[in-house]
């Protein structure tokens, strides 16, 4: 058996295991989907009610679509982030972390399997939200550039995979509360990335932080494609920062994870199950 076949089978082990877990926890998956749909609708209805709230004439359709884009992009990126960052937290909870980490599988193989699953799972999840939102709001996407939208989502995935890998270090090093700590990373990104508002409304000193968040570029690009129908060729200013951030975040995340794993093995932190 060639090493490539061995690694492919090992990567597939994580995909198959996660699919089996989704099947076995189908009730939880339904609850999670209902929760995210309700959340997305609640935010989007702010747009529907803005005329009544402000007493001013506003372009309600534009505002709803602006918020829908925010909820959908955020859900997509957040689901990818959690699917990667929970790879250790979940194993700690199940008590299988030692079994998985003593298998002859390089961490990169482990991450490839986990990432492949995360992207597929997140795309399906996002499609579900989009479908539900379309039922509630009469979304006019005739001018939208859907191919550009997909390209932006995939380019944005890279950085969130890298950030997710870095976040996965927390449950590795802090068995009791590491998983909860990862929420802080996501909360900061949600705050500075202009998910539901333009980043220009943030205080001037916070705006440079928005430029460091990959979500900012995905959101700005998505709004350009869905609201204004921007052509694929005009999206490069949004795509190159995402590719650059992904190109830095993934290798950096993998290296940081390897260092943290070694530290955990030196200090005996793999043993405790949180």
């Amino acid at each position, binding site marked *: *058996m060639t090493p490539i076949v061995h690694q492919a089978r090992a990567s*597939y082990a994580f995909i*198959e*295991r996660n699919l089996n*877990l989704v099947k076995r926890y189908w009730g939880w998956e339904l609850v999670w989907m209902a929760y995210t749909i309700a959340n997305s609708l609640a935010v989007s209805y702010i747009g529907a009610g803005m005329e009544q709230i402000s007493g001013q004439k506003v372009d309600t359709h534009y505002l709803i679509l602006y918020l829908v884009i925010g909820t959908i992009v955020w859900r997509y990126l957040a689901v990818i982030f959690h699917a990667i960052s929970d790879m250790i937290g979940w194993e700690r909870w199940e008590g299988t972390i*030692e079994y998985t980490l*003593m298998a002859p599988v390089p961490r990169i193989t482990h991450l490839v399997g986990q990432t492949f699953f995360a992207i597929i799972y997140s795309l399906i999840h996002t499609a579900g939200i989009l479908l539900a939102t379309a039922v509630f709001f009469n979304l006019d996407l005739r001018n939208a550039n859907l191919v550009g939208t997909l390209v932006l989502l995939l380019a944005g995935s890279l950085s969130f995979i890298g950030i997710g890998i870095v976040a996965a270090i927390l449950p590795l090093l802090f068995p009791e509360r590491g998983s909860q700590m990862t929420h802080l990373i996501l909360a900061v990104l949600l705050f500075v990335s202009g998910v539901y508002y333009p980043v220009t409304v943030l205080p001037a000193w916070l705006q440079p932080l928005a430029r460091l968040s990959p979500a900012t570029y995905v959101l700005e690009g998505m709004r350009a494609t869905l609201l204004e129908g921007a052509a694929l060729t005009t999206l490069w200013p949004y795509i190159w920062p995402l590719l650059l951030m992904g190109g830095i975040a993934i290798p950096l995340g993998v290296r940081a994870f390897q260092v943290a794993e070694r530290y955990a093995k030196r200090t005996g932190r793999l043993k405790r199950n949180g």
Partner: protein
Amino acid sequence: MDTIALNIQHVSKSFGGGRRWLPRLRGGNGEVRPIVAVSDITLQVRRGEIFGVLGPNGSGKSTLIRLISTLLLPDSGTITVFGHDVVREERAVQRLINRVSVEAAFFKRLSPIENLLYGARLYGLSGDEARRRIHEILRRLDVRADALGKPMEEMSRGMQQKVAIARAFLTAPILLLLDEPTTGLDPRSKREVQAFVRELRDSHDATILLTTHDMEEADALCDRIAIMDEGRIIALDTPTGLKALVHPSNGRVPTLEDVFMQLTGKVLAEEEEIAA
């Protein structure tokens, strides 16, 4: 000449220790004494041997198994598995070993088949090959076929432990680390597992390192036994050799339990004398 399957040379491992900053701010020295789990252990296990490690709770048996399993890094000393260093050649070692721990760690909602398929693929087995071996091993371990598709959490502790043993056997390791594998099993299941361990050694050329509290099990299975206490090996010999360390009393042949109690008792007595 015998091949050395496992070579442990002067291995030590401590946890904790160092200085804490908060007590230092409050005026203390903040120094925390490390807990010594394994202290200067040296032993060799020959290929095809069933080697037992006996010791009370906290004696360092499981830490030793984790060090061999690449789950912990030693503070000092070296461990090699068939010549591969566990620190420098981690992946090569991982391919040769597997481990059964006292707590049968599984994805509790997944079925035995789903858990075992996951384990098999991690070790590079194809789905078809894995399924064939899974059914063969589980049948050999007397795991009912109707239980294979149900979640692990619906199985008894004994059945879960059998599946854990099957998971380790599935990857055909040439060094198998069994950390109290029969704890929680009923007498019949225990005998089945013990017979399977012997079979594995005899027909699959596996070397087995076994930790146990069960003296009868150690006596029946092991070619040689090391007795550990407070991170150190205090005796190492064949079961017969160990029993010879204890004088027969009332005409009764000493058991391993007598040896164990006498040796660990001696150490404790010596410590009490030093402390006094």
